[in-house]
């Protein structure tokens, strides 16, 4: 016998499992505590991506009165002893669901590399393509029969395709993001005018009949995925209305406002309400190498308004306890103010926020020194942040996927969630 018998058994089993289970999906066979399954049921994550890198000093970690502090003051929040930038007066009054993390040290200070790290939660490896956070969450929180998209990613013009990371990696194209590139509606979601809805449906039925006949007696994951993809088309098309804000009450629209960011946040709320497990909304132009303070006056004010409105909206609908809202970027900005009154890329000591599902509201984790140059307490990296996000929505961060026979934990081995911010 020339073949390693264990390999033979392994492969034979995988083939027998047929089109549904791929070899990397063998982890479904691993018994998982039922309570965990129930815990993550119906959980969602909404990522507010501050493309270009928002300043922690003008948001979550102000340094008033220091040389690095800039012109803005800090204001007292509803939490005793906690201050944030005066540019966020609305958030200051509603931090009761929010945890602020002030001790990120992620080391990568270029847009491309930083964006990859903060989407994947780990560094790239040359011969293995990791899934990003959205694909992992789509896989872990989505249901196979979901009629809505399970991973929607808005990307903005300045962010550029290159930095708009969204990759299912070894999880496969089933978990690829639906990218919204030109407007707030995905491409090819609406039926063309020259075919009726009935014919559109019935030609798909004819296709399924022909294709299923062909698939008989043939086994292949790719072949299976082809028919699964077509099987999802009609369901996804029925979610088209989620992207259309015209039926949103005027009262709600007025609260969010008219900016693109606000509109996307509104669509995101509609999507999570309908069950989409992961939505990313990106707001660009944060890369303030010059005129940092004018830029942040405009952008933080908008963020403060949209974020607080979104949280309120989610809370009123009873969605916040099942929805985790994250603010994140590829890095923060230098405490040192440069000659153009700008702040440059800074990955050594910056901030993120987590609100809602699974979070111990009203907490602040970690601290930087008095000028914000270094992390003073509780330094964490991307992996710990990702572990925290996963755990908050009921996913075991040490859960393993298998690529071939190689186990791949959701986050790098040896890293743990920040339990201090978890409910």
């Amino acid at each position, binding site marked *: 016998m*020339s073949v*390693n018998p264990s390999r033979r058994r392994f492969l034979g089993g995988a083939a027998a499992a047929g089109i549904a289970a791929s070899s990397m999906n063998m982890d479904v066979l691993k018994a998982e505590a039922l309570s965990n399954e129930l815990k993550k049921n119906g959980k969602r994550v909404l990522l507010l991506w501050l493309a270009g890198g928002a300043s922690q000093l003008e948001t979550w970690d102000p340094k008033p009165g220091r040389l690095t502090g800039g012109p803005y003051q800090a204001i007292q929040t509803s939490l005793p002893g906690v201050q944030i930038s005066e540019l966020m007066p609305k958030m200051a009054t509603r931090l009761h669901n929010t945890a602020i993390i002030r001790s990120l040290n992620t080391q990568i200070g270029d847009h491309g590399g930083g964006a990859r790290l903060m989407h994947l939660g780990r560094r790239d490896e040359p011969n293995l393509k990791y899934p990003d956070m959205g694909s992992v969450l789509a896989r872990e929180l989505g249901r196979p029969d979901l009629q809505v998209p399970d991973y929607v990613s808005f990307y903005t013009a300045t962010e550029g395709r290159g930095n708009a990371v969204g990759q299912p990696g070894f999880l*496969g194209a089933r978990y690829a993001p639906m990218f919204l590139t030109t407007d707030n509606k995905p491409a090819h979601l609406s039926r063309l005018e020259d075919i009726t809805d009935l*014919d559109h449906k019935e030609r798909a039925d004819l296709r399924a009949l*022909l294709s299923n006949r*062909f698939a008989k007696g043939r086994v292949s994951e790719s072949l299976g995925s082809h028919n699964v993809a*077509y099987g*999802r088309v009609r369901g996804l*098309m029925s979610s088209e209305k989620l992207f259309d804000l015209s039926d949103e009450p005027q009262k709600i629209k007025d609260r969010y406002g008219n900016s693109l960011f606000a509109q996307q946040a509104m669509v995101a709320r509609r999507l999570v309400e309908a069950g989409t497990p992961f939505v990313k909304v990106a707001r660009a132009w944060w890369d303030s190498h010059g005129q940092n303070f004018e830029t942040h006056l405009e952008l933080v004010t908008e963020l403060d308004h949209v974020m607080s409105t979104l949280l309120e909206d989610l809370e009123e609908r009873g969605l916040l306890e099942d929805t985790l809202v994250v603010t994140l970027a590829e890095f923060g900005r230098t405490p040192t103010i440069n000659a153009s009154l700008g702040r440059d890329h800074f990955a050594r000591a910056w901030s993120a926020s987590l609100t809602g599902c699974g979070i111990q509201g009203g907490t602040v984790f970690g601290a930087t020194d008095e000028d914000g140059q270094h992390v003073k307490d509780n330094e964490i990296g991307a992996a710990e942040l990702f572990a925290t996000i996963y755990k908050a929505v009921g996913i075991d961060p040490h859960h393993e996927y298998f690529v071939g026979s190689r186990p791949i934990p959701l986050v790098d081995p040896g890293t743990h969630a920040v339990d201090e911010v978890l409910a």
Partner: protein
Amino acid sequence: MLKKLSLLAAVLLCPGINHAQDLLPPETSIQDAVDHYIKSEQATGNIQPAAQVDDYVLMRRTMLDLAGRIPTIAEVEAYVADEDPQKRVKLVDRLMAQPEFTEQLAYDLNNILAPAGKTDLELYLVDALTAQKGWDTMFADMIYGNYEEEMPKQAMQFVNLRISDIDNLTNATSALFFGVNISCAKCHDHPLVSEWTQAHFYGMKSFFNRSFSNGDFVAERAYGEIKYATTSGEQLDAQLMFLTGSVIEEPEPVVLDDEGKKKEKADFEQLKKDKKPAPAPAFSRRAQLIEIALRENDREYFSKNIANRMWHRIYGYGLVMPLDQMHPENPPSHPDLLDWLARDTYANGYNLPRLIRGLVLSQTYSQSSRYDGEKRPAEFWFAAANVKPLSPRQYAAALAIAARNPAHWEDASEAESRIANEVKAQRGWANKFAVPNDEFQVSVDEALLFSNDTAFEDKIKVSNDRLGGELAKLETTEAMVQRAIKAVYSRPATPEEVQAISAYLDARNDRREDAISQIVWALMTSSELRFNH
């Protein structure tokens, strides 16, 4: 310590022990060797292979693999009607003589070798294959260049596109040319193997650490060493060590004073400005990699890797899987066959077309992808053909051929150039699809595109230059279904298909043209066109 380990490693890590005396004689044809080894292994496992395919399927499969497109109705009918017992060999030789064969091989090789989304190597590969270069020469061109003749600027992109990250370049070289992913071995538990990995990883990295990008070309200095720390914290100097554990003795590195370095830098800058290649140092580490990887006692990784990759390309599954895990803990499914193919490939100047020709002429190749027995044997038995997702270009070409009015291809004197023109004109469609890998899944974006895209609606409409236009003119429904199935799937329709499609049409008597267009849509989006089966 190091020496002892590398000796052990050399024994442990030789990818399969070569027992040349037991192999089939070298003069055996490739196809006979393939069938011999595959069938004898099946016999040991009591595995019943699938039936051989008919001429229709064989013609389509061969055409896709060798010409990158589906056949026209005229081509498939001519092949089926041909009574020459040598027609299969003649088809293969005819297709391999056409430029499309070389173009597709270069395209596929570029997809393997270039970083994702880059096409930089493709033109070089077309030229190299056209000049009948062996895989060993192409390897040398890509890693080292060619200082004797003209420097192949495009070939150098293999190194140049990756050189800003030498770890990545080291892994890519090792995985793509030698079938060994050394970054992955970090996770193996075996203490000896993990020790080996570090020494070998830095050994392999040493072949590249003196190189850097100098504009369009890669330049190399005559100095620069690598130090690394073991897991126990010991500081070691990396040796110039190949994967087999063989170490190259090298001269002392050149020592330059500040003045010398300044001049060297200025020289490189000037060459960069002049867009000229820098001369190689007297002792080039990259040149040493070529030398050692191809020499007698160390070439097994190189020869087995390319044999395995070409096998995978044709049969849709490697003799070693995954392709970059060629190590003793993951033995080939058919060690003797891989040995035989590697030896044959080496002995014939690493001639890739010759290898491909043998692979597509075997009976293993012409097995059906459909297995009607009780339990389909796992892929590594090669008891039934694997369905392979079409590459983006193959799919674009298949859509282009199927969508046209078949009458467009009928005039034999015009057909060849018309096909070539149409395939080139429709190549832009390839950008809409992903390059398939081993875990390939079709995305819902693709299904949505075909379902609701105006450009695709244009391909399926009923008009004179489209398939639908011809179908609308046919008298009977039966004739229409037969014609449509043959245009899209290159075979006659089954009675069930005639029945299902007729019923669809009958229900739409009030909008027959719409119905025809919808039928074409259903045929063209079905898996039978999307895959090579």
